[in-house]
């Protein structure tokens, strides 16, 4: 399975390596660098690279490449999924995952990697088990450790690994028992020139923050579970219960985790909460840019944190725009216009207009750029999904329960 892992930063330094089998020379990464050079952007590096003796499977996250080296047949998704799990574990431990953090926490990182794979095969990837084995750093512990020379390696043996609920650590205790659920929906859409919808779908998540003592057994039911016909679950969810009763029944892991993600496909009706009317024209002398944003189907909620991004054609040298609200910036290097609109007031629609300076001599661009839109809407799940009730069994206390809804733009794109 996975022989080695190299972590490489954007400037091409291999700043960390870990081997689970015999050591593989880091020169194998040269093949990776080769592929990286060919790629137009970091995102374009092919995830699987074939070299004479090894296969390199890489992911790119947080400006870092995680390159796994394998020598034999292995499902590539297996490795990719694992690498992402590694990054998520680091993020879970250090709250973010970047070069500095990894370098600062070499020992923990190394211990984590050691526990996560045995001979290249995943061993413990549940964050709750890992946390039993290796405690995540926090400020107090760091201070204490530096004084008394302790480490983050737990003295305890991880019993969680042996339990039937490996995702939950045993002996959890909280003074305030709380369970928070965030129903987050992301709207992906492509809207064409004329403003009509080409395609839209919703990707939803239920993220939880569960701080409950003991071994609670939770069930969650929905007002309109019919919406959820394409769902994936955290392993703690009992599949059969869902299939027969459409109830999510689970013993939650401790802490933050993603309970469910669901997908509402393009076949169903998806409400589009915002419209964008761009107008662009290019002439030899220069171009005009005019754009208006407004709310559409928002179910009475306000659209907030609106950000409009347009990648203008390469010939645009500079822009001279005035907006009715918010700030706008133009990055002349990658020609990106960013307009932070903020809240949309339906009475007074925000708009931005002005002129563009074009490179003299070059012909006006043929195609208009596409515009990406970001927004959030609080207290609304755009699909209409609602949690009906949440019940807890198995423990006696009354937990505090909360559900929050949020809709935001996913890959929301307007063609011009």
């Amino acid at each position, binding site marked *: 399975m996975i022989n080695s892992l190299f972590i490489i930063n954007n400037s091409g330094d291999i700043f960390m*390596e*870990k081997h689970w*089998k*015999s*050591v593989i*020379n880091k020169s194998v990464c040269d093949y990776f660098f080769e592929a990286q050079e060919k790629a137009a952007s970091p*995102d*374009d590096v092919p995830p699987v690279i074939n070299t004479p003796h090894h296969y390199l499977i890489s*992911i*790119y*996250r947080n400006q870092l490449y995680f390159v796994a080296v394998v020598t*034999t*047949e292995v*499902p590539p*998704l297996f490795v*990719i999924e*694992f690498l*992402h799990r590694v990054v998520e574990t680091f993020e879970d431990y250090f709250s973010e995952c970047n070069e500095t953090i990894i370098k600062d926490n*070499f*020992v923990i990182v190394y*211990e984590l990697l050691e526990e996560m794979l*045995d*001979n290249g095969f995943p061993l413990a990837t549940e964050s709750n088990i890992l946390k039993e084995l290796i405690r995540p750093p926090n400020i107090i512990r760091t201070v204490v450790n530096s004084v008394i*020379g*302790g*480490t983050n*390696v737990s*003295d305890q*043996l991880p*019993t969680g690994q*042996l339990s039937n*609920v490996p995702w939950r650590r045993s002996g959890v205790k909280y003074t305030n028992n709380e369970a928070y659920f965030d129903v987050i929906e992301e709207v*992906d859409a492509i809207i064409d020139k004329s403003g009509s919808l*080409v*395609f839209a*779908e919703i990707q939803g998540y239920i993220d939880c923050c569960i701080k409950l003592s003991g*071994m*609670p*057994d939770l069930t969650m039911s929905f007002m309109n579970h019919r919406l959820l016909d*394409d769902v*994936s679950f955290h*392993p703690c969810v009992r*599949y*059969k*219960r869902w*299939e*027969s009763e459409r109830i999510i029944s689970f*013993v939650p892991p401790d802490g933050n985790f993603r309970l469910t*993600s669901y*997908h509402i*496909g*393009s076949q169903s009706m998806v409400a589009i909460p915002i419209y964008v009317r761009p107008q662009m024209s290019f002439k030899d002398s220069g171009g005009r840019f005019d754009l208006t944003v407004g709310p559409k189907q928002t179910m009475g909620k306000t659209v907030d944190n609106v950000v409009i991004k347009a990648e203008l*054609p390469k010939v645009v040298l500079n822009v001279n725009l005035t907006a009715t609200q918010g700030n706008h910036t133009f990055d002349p290097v990658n020609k990106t216009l960013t307009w932070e609109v903020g809240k949309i007031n339906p009475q007074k629609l925000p708009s931005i207009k002005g002129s563009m300076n074009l490179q003299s001599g070059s*012909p006006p661009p*043929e*195609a208009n750029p596409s515009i990406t839109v970001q927004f959030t809407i609080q207290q609304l799940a755009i699909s209409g999904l609602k949690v009906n009730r949440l019940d807890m*069994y198995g*423990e*006696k206390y009354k937990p505090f329960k909360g559900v929050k809804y949020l809709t935001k733009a996913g890959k929301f794109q307007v*063609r011009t």
Partner: protein
Amino acid sequence: MAHNSTEHRSYANERPASLSGSGETTDIATDPASGGIFAADYKKHEDLKQMLDSNKDNLKLEAMKRIIGMVAKGKDASDLFAAVVKNVVSKKIEIKKLVYVYLVRYAEEQQDLALLSISTFQKGLKDPNQLIRASALRVLSSIRVPVIVPIMMLAIKEAVNDMSPYVRKTAAHAIPKLYCLDPELKEQLIEVIEKLLSDKTTLVAGSVVYSFEEVCPERIDLIHKSYRKLCNLLIDVEEWGQVVIINMLTRYSRTQFLDPNAGEAVAEDLPENFYGSDDSDKEETNEAVVVNVKKPYVMDSDHRLLLRNCKPLLQSRNAAVVMAVAQLYHHIAPKSEVGIVAKPLVRLLRSHREVQSIVLSNIATMSAKRRGMFEPFLKSFFVRANDPTHIRLLKLEILTNLASETSISTILREFQTYVTSADKNFVAATIQAIGRCASNIAEVTDTCLNGLMGLMSNRDESVVGESVVVMKKLLQMNPTEHKEIIRHLARLTESISVPMARASILWLIGEYSDRVPKIAPDVLRKMAKTFITEEDIVKLQILNLGAKLYLTNSKQTKLLCQYVLNLAKYDQNYDIRDRARFLRQLLFPSEKGGALNKHAKKMFLASKPAPVLESQFKDRDQFQLGSLSHIINSKTIGYHELPEFPEEAPDPTVRNVEMPAPWDEPMSTGKIFKKMKPRKFYSSDEAEESNSESGSDSSDSSTTSSDSDSDSDSSSDEESEEEEKRKVRKKKRVVTKLDEDESIESNSDSSSSSSSSSSSDSDSSEESSEESDSDENEKIKLQPKTKTKPVASPKREGKKHKSSDKTQQSQVQLLDFDDIGSPPSTVTNHIQDQSVLVPVLSSDLQGLSLNNVGNISVTTAMKSPTQTHELLNRMHGQGLSAVYRFTRGTCIYSTTMVPIELTITNTSDVVIKCIKMGETKLKGDMKIHQFQEIPSLAVGKSVNTSLGIDFADTTQPANFEICTETRKFNVTINAPGRSKLRGMNENIGKVEIPAANNERKKIIECIADVANVQVVPLSDLEEQVYRLAGRTASTGALCLVSVKSNDSGEGSITVNCEKMVIGNMLVKDIKNSLSKVK
């Protein structure tokens, strides 16, 4: 340091390919120029070494941290090996762990020194704590030192029989490591794998299949017996294991089951290029035809089982699992069912870029074959503005595959926007895609051609070039109708500079010169002018054009053609020179040759078949979907070809499983040690799903709940979890949960769901609820039916050892060290009774000192703990009575707690409400986990609930109150007696005792000659059994010797000792000593 550097050098040549990242120092010793760096390193490492040698733990730790930092950065730290390896014995677990990490990294390079650490791990292998055993095995097997292969083999063989599934899992992981180190052990390892394959725990399943795939993937026959079990366990296996198992089972199914689509294969060939009907309809009709024509295909029930059990995994959050199920369906499911995987696959597209990329490649392959499946999701494959190029290309590929009459207009509209993209590769690919759509769907060919013509005016060269190339292919299919286009293209020769496009145009003109008779010679004329500046590919086409024109229109073009041939004669490229020479001979033959001349026309102007525009993913479907080979489109090392379905179904009965699992067979019978209670673990009948996994080994009383030892055995939980899920699967689960069971519910659903079901049924009887509990708690007496075969020979934690010597069949046994002070001679009932009270055993064997060796006595197996103790008398409780028993399972609340089952019965004539636990009066560190409140208990009914008490290793009773709505009752649960169980190796030897020695004194003398052991007073003189005990000097391992003899001089020696070797030696020595006449 000096020592180390020589050490270092002497191993330098034994370290092939391992010098990565160690560049600075590895060759320094031989490289004087780098002496400076060496010196600096020398100093730096020196202080690390000092820190490691110090006796302060925190200094050591600091040093280890810095060393690990070096290892992580890829710097060489191998010269510290000796200093580091010493610390392997460190008491501090942090240091130990870091040393392990270091050791695994460098042991390969410093083999001799690494051997120093081996003994530590060997000791760890015998540790009572399963986690320590497992981690010792893990590190031991990760040290790639060939010398220790025999030790590893032995350790694996032992661990395979370990009662902890976690250790067995680690053993499964160790197998490929050992195989890697010494492939000659394959046969032996296969035996081990075979044994592990019959394991019934989810923890082990994934790992053993992984090692199966690594070691002996060709031995598909090993899977037969475990096939159904694997299918059933699948859903509960951890996600990584699921992937491996599903992939393996796909291959298995291909060898064992018939092709579910066999009948359709013939019918399918036709409509491949023929898009006359809607795809889904087509499939249905095909199926209908199959049913009518062929004899009906009946799917093997095992085949169905696999498909059914995999289906829920499509909802896994792990993309690899979803993909694995998808490929399973793609490869082995009937056509009509494959459709269900489409939606989950499309869902994965929202995941990370890398996941997207792999999933799209797989969808591309699938969609080429099964268009209908993804058609509803067409729009999900529309290209987004921020998709990276390789993803865009994959999406295009899929869109093209999906194009049909109904969807083509949508797709073409979409393509229109794509051709304006700034990403030129993408635009080119889009044009090709348009070409493919046009060629596949006759209705839109004209539209597409017109569209492509429109692109001719594009300002971008590459776009125009690509369009020309595509148009050439399209025109070839139907040239007569498109004279205009050919003419238009001919005009473009002047403006287009993309070589491929120019070549295409020239070819077109040459091929269809009869349709543009006037333009063609003119084009040749112009080309002749620019011949020398053209690209090679264009030159070749100019030559072709010349030849073809000469053949059709020799009058006008003869000179031109000769001119071009002359130019080509002196070209730099030998291909062009060759071509020119060939054409000249063919067209303008000299006197001698010329046999071919008359065929020239046939050769050049033969009608050429139109190219079939094919997907570049076409040939990928030879590989198993989801595999690495599929992605890189070539066979990888270790790729197993997916076999075709067999013509005739192999015998399905091979998958029938009889009981019991192999290792539960009695190994030998201990004579002194009476049989332990038969263990139920692993012995349940697989076929009877309802009661499978009903056993658990938790009651093997090896588990302890003391603070010092968290050696809790999870298998009970695990089994019950499995069982629970199975029950859910069978929809037996009772939805309404009673409150009193909630506390159990969270941990071991089996007991609660079953007991709640029994208690929610109005006619619940005590027995039924007890029975359901006993599922978990293993009460043989109550469940005679579900017991299949009582299996003898209990085994203990990894102490089993198969000696090669048959006569010395060693056996794992249970010893029960009774409480100090209990009468040593009571081997029997007294202890049994007491042991009933001992669900959990504290474990500190070291606490025994020599003088109480005499107290060590041997018990029979403990009875299953059916005995109940009264907690609350019905008289005192005013009708409320309560009894408790120690279930001996692992406590679900905490590993240190003793699980207690409480049966509360209402014998009064009113309903008792709100039965709950009141105030507790606990001493010291004791803890209690309350049972769930019982809202009401009807008259005459009883209810089972459970609570957990942590006695904190004291013998203090736990006092607490049971409250009802109106009353409170003080009750007391006494701490269970403490004793301990440790496994020992038993070695048995037979001996002829000479008459001279055959008397008590002599025998004891003889034994004492060999070893310093004390006579244990309980020796039964009448039967002439002599028992002696001692312990080894250093580790204090206990050793029991029993010698039995009869008057005729036949004697048997039994030695039980933790140390296998010592036991073995002792038997031998005693044998010698006894048989010798002094």
